[in-house]
């Protein structure tokens, strides 16, 4: 193999070298943190995905070393490959921040916001996205579009009202199964994911559509309303499965296995198995093996401390040690996005310390102590 050509690309002032053919989004993910644009429809393991949700729009302020002209419009970073010397602005561009706020608003227009009764809550990409970029109020004052719930086979339920039409499940069925029986019907804001006349999805790998769904549109019927994800303890486990890799995450409470999912990385995507293949899991592993004795448990799964699932319980990886880092450190240098900053609200609520500097989960004592000290 000849030597790989490396391109220099600068995202938000941070320069990195990536192989030619890498997309802007993948390059930004290598830098990590807030530099990586959010992605609702792009899924690196699914060929052809991306470009649809427009949350990953970035500004290219310099095309390349050879042709330094900026690109006239914002581009979808998930589908635009880097050029040598390219300069990209993500959160440092006002245009991007403005457009992204717009996209989030559009995505939430017809979304029911029924998080309190949604099984995806806590691991929902749309929740994260609206937390980071959304507003606390809506300007939409009309009736939202709704659909009836549909059962797609005995294990998967489709709640179309929540769908953001990312097409990930369509690509999954195309690429993992030999025959796709669901797709997009109709167009525009009344488009829907559907099987043509109530067919069931019964391929052995179709359960993966639940894992790729960024919202709660496709949910696991064996887990529906059983528990909240942040009450469960994720454990890495494996079993000798004849059809798939058998490498999964078990979601336990006590010894009881509540649900089984594939292992997901920090971007919410399926992790690769050691041999470099995407770790899709089969329906048997996902829906039928709900007994701890079916599995060899490897240990607790590392969950990002920023996630609500960790609930402060998973410092390091194991145990329930009280965390010592500040929220800023845990959250990659990112201050908490507060809907209402208590510093500005009244004289009473004026701790002389920024919330981001408070060590660990804060409670009343934290504030009192700090104020007294100050």
């Amino acid at each position, binding site marked *: 193999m000849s030597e790989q050509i490396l391109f220099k690309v600068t995202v938000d002032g941070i320069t990195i070298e990536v192989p030619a053919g890498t997309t802007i989004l993948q390059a930004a993910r290598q830098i990590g943190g807030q530099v990586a644009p959010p992605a609702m429809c792009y899924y690196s393991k699914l060929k052809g995905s991306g470009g649809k*949700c427009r949350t990953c729009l970035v500004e290219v302020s310099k095309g390349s070393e050879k042709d330094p002209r900026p690109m006239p419009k914002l581009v979808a970073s998930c589908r635009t490959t880097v050029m040598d010397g390219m300069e990209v602005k993500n959160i440092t561009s006002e245009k991007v921040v403005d457009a992204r706020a717009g996209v989030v608003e*559009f995505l939430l227009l017809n979304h029911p916001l029924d998080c309190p009764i949604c099984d995806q809550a806590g691991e929902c990409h749309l929740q994260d996205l609206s937390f980071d970029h959304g507003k606390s109020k809506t300007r939409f004052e009309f009736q939202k579009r709704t659909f009836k719930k549909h059962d797609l086979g005995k294990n998967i339920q489709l709640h179309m009202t929540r769908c953001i039409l990312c097409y990930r499940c369509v690509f999954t069925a195309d690429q993992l199964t030999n025959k796709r029986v669901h797709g997009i019907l109709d167009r525009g804001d009344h488009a829907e994911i559907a099987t043509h006349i109530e067919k069931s999805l019964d391929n052995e790998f179709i359960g993966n559509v639940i894992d790729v769904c960024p919202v709660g549109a496709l949910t696991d019927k064996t887990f529906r309303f059983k528990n909240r994800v942040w009450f469960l303890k994720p454990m890495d486990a494996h079993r000798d499965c004849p059809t798939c890799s058998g490498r999964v995450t078990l979601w336990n409470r006590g010894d009881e296995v509540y649900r089984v999912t594939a292992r997901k990385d920090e971007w919410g995507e399926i992790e690769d198995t050691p041999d470099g293949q995407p770790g899709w899991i089969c329906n048997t592993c996902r829906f039928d093996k709900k007994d701890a004795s079916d599995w060899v448990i490897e240990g607790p799964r590392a969950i990002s401390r920023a996630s609500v699932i960790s609930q402060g319980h998973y410092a390091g990886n194991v145990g329930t040690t009280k965390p010592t880092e500040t929220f800023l450190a845990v959250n990659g240098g990112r201050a908490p996005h507060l809907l209402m900053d208590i510093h500005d609200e009244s004289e009473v609520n004026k701790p002389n310390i920024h919330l981001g500097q408070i060590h660990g989960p804060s409670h009343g004592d934290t504030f009192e102590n700090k104020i007294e000290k100050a």
Partner: protein
Amino acid sequence: MGVKLLLDKANVPGIRTYEVYRREGGYRAVEKALKEMTTDAIVEEVKKSGLRGRGGAGFPTGMKWSFIAKPEGVPRHLVCNADESEPGTFKDRYLMEFLPHLLIEGLIISSFALGSNDTYIYIRGEYAWIPDILEEAINEAKAAGWLGKNILGTGFDCNIHVQRGGGAYICGEETALIESLEGKRGNPRIKPPFPAIQGLWMRPTVVNNVETLAAIVPIINMGGDEYAKIGVGKSTGTKLISACGNINNPGVYEIDMTITVEEFIYSDEYCGGIKDGKKLKACIPGGSSVPILPANLLLTTAKGEPRYMNYESLSDGGFATGSMLGSGGFIVLDEDQCIVKNTYTLARFYRHESCGQCSPCREGTGWMEKILQKIETGKGEMSDIDLLWDIQRKIEGNTICPLGDAASWPVAAAIRHFRDEFEWHVKNPELSQTSNFGLQHYADPIHVPA
């Protein structure tokens, strides 16, 4: 009387049949192109002619042709975009219905120039009777030896296939058209790669409008330089304008792009003035998606110069005070028309036709429609007007294909130029249901800063 290159024979009885078309000098351009010219020479001639795409965007055709990739052993395709669905545009229908052989002739030359052995005409589903006319013309041309194998002994094979669409506006976007032609759902593709590199069945493809391809015939007959002498500046040749709305003579007119907008509206040769002696209020000069202009800005530019019917003059002043020639769908509105209702109708159209692939267009078009309906039915608030402005701003430029822009421009322009009419609707919810805002100051001479 202006120059006519496309419609000069339109009134000859029986021109639809091969015999009459041939007798009137048809297929001479094919003979000239295939026997006397190389493919590069044809592309060069089209470049010299300065012909710009007649579908709406106005991209130079010769340049588009020169972009097509020519990898060894991979077939190339020419696709004729006859999915003319822009509200107010019906020039291609006229051309295909009355002069089918002109299109076929243009297609043969263009296929030869681009090396396309299988050329497709993608026609919108609503034009139900036209595919039959085209297919009959194709069969006649084939019987006379202009299509099929080894045309005129040059060794060039060409077949033209007519494909009916399902009636979706979005399939007029070139990559959505290609998807639809492949038998898939008509969703626009994410570019790059552009069709010139990977188009139909991942082969290099050129997609051109019907009128563009028909214009190839006079270019070959008279030569690119001669063609470029007609018109003005970068608007060369002739353009078909489909005029409709509140005018005395709606119809398809061929203009040579040197006449003023005023002449086009009021001359008896063209629109023949506003119907029932009323006054001109506004006009959408290039198909529903281009910005609407009030009468004063339509007839004169912001600099106070008369506006001409060509690409540059109509877009003079950018979107702040100008518009676009677009596809040539000239929609005239008289003093009795309500701009809010008109904008609502357009927003409803775009909401219905959005493919739903990318979120700003899918959700934004529906939202704009609902707000416009609210204002139109007398339930609007002042903040709704600013909200509309903000929504269109967040759709424009952030979508995969130009449908998002097409949906936001009419709303933006209506608010930009007719904001007081929107405000009148909000302030007079009851009155606005029974009467119209009227002409007001929209035809007053514009103040030109010295």
